[in-house]
């Protein structure tokens, strides 16, 4: 018999208002409502969340791990983006 697996959904949970949604795992579900309901049952059994995102895994695009050098290394020499780059007089250094 033909096997039809339930699609995979990636689950992101906001643990409390003010924080980002954070990836916490995945579930299998056949529709979005089911994905949200079971995500609640699977990932927030201990009051871990106030908001859930469910995203079909097949809809996520990701960077290639081997593209790391061209994607991420160029940021390496842009040290002026970091606050510690700037040495200010002690009196105002808490800025």
């Amino acid at each position, binding site marked *: 018999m033909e096997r039809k*697996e339930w699609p995979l959904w*990636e689950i992101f949970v906001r643990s409390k208002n003010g924080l980002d949604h954070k990836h916490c795992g995945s579930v299998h579900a*056949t529709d979005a409502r089911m994905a949200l309901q079971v995500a609640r049952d699977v990932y927030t059994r201990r009051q871990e969340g106030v908001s859930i995102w469910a995203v079909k895994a097949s809809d996520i*695009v*990701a960077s290639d*791990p081997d593209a790391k050098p061209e994607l991420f290394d160029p940021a390496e020499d842009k040290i002026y983006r970091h606050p510690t780059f700037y040495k200010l007089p002690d009196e105002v250094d808490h800025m």
Partner: protein
Amino acid sequence: MYTQALDIPPGEQPKRKPDAVENAAYQAEFDARIDAGATIEAKDWMPEAYRKTLVRQISQHAHSEIVGMLPEGNWISRAPSLKRKAILLAKVQDEGGHGLYLYAAAETLGVSRDELTEALLSGKAKYSSIFNYPTLNWADVGVIGWLVDGAAIMNQIPLCKCSYGPYARAMVRVCKEESFHQRQGYDALLAMMSGTDAQRELVQDAVNRWWWPSLMMFGPHDADSPNSGQSMRWGIKRISNDDLRQKFVDATVKQAEVLGVTLPDDELKWNEARGHYDFAAIDWDEFWNVVNGHGQCNVDRLAARVKAWDDGAWVREAAVAHAEKQAAREKAAA
């Protein structure tokens, strides 16, 4: 990410696929990362043997959680108070959750949960032998929490730092939840030990039956554990079987004393020179008999899983069929 479906955008081909053929340069880079204690992620290149070992280990672990729901689940309907019923139900439900996290981690390696499930149901895949022992009285529930989950935690904590990211992260979640399991078990036993003689007899009976199987959970002696060396090298096993077993015995003796039960081993005594407890030889024939399918419950456990899966087939199909119809209707309406 817990998914093998994390696709590169269409039109762009990855430089090398994680399942690319063996390659000495990649291998050297991989080894260096392992040696540096770096984490390997799902889309990184990895040697095929590493991937296979992980799939086997993670899926066995997941199967163990799922089959592990059965022995304790056997007592949910008969829990002796509503509080204990709620605790046990939550606990067994957690095991299901742990199975789910672990299947998801295995799925990042390019296998599907349904494939893994079929391997379990056909008898091809193994699960922890401990669950092939029967739960014969209510105290078994407490003793499983105390000893079996206690042993499992010792086995599992090192895995939170294992080299494969998705597995390590699943284990962090599992371990956080497991400590409730061990404590609820011990708490249930404390209540029984401070009850009637009949209750204390139940506890001792359960301890007598579960002690040795719990020690066997750490696996064969290091000398007889052929795959251990490679797994240690790969950082998917961190501490040896015998070391973990000793640690477990050392921790448990005191807990047994506080509880007021006798561990069924005449040779169990403190060895000042070693700084550890000595204990009697494990009956490895029994261990291998159960592993090889001849335990008291091997047949029943698998039959229960097969029944749940087969009986549920029409439900799983119905949900897919409805989703397809719904999608077609929405398309037609658009």
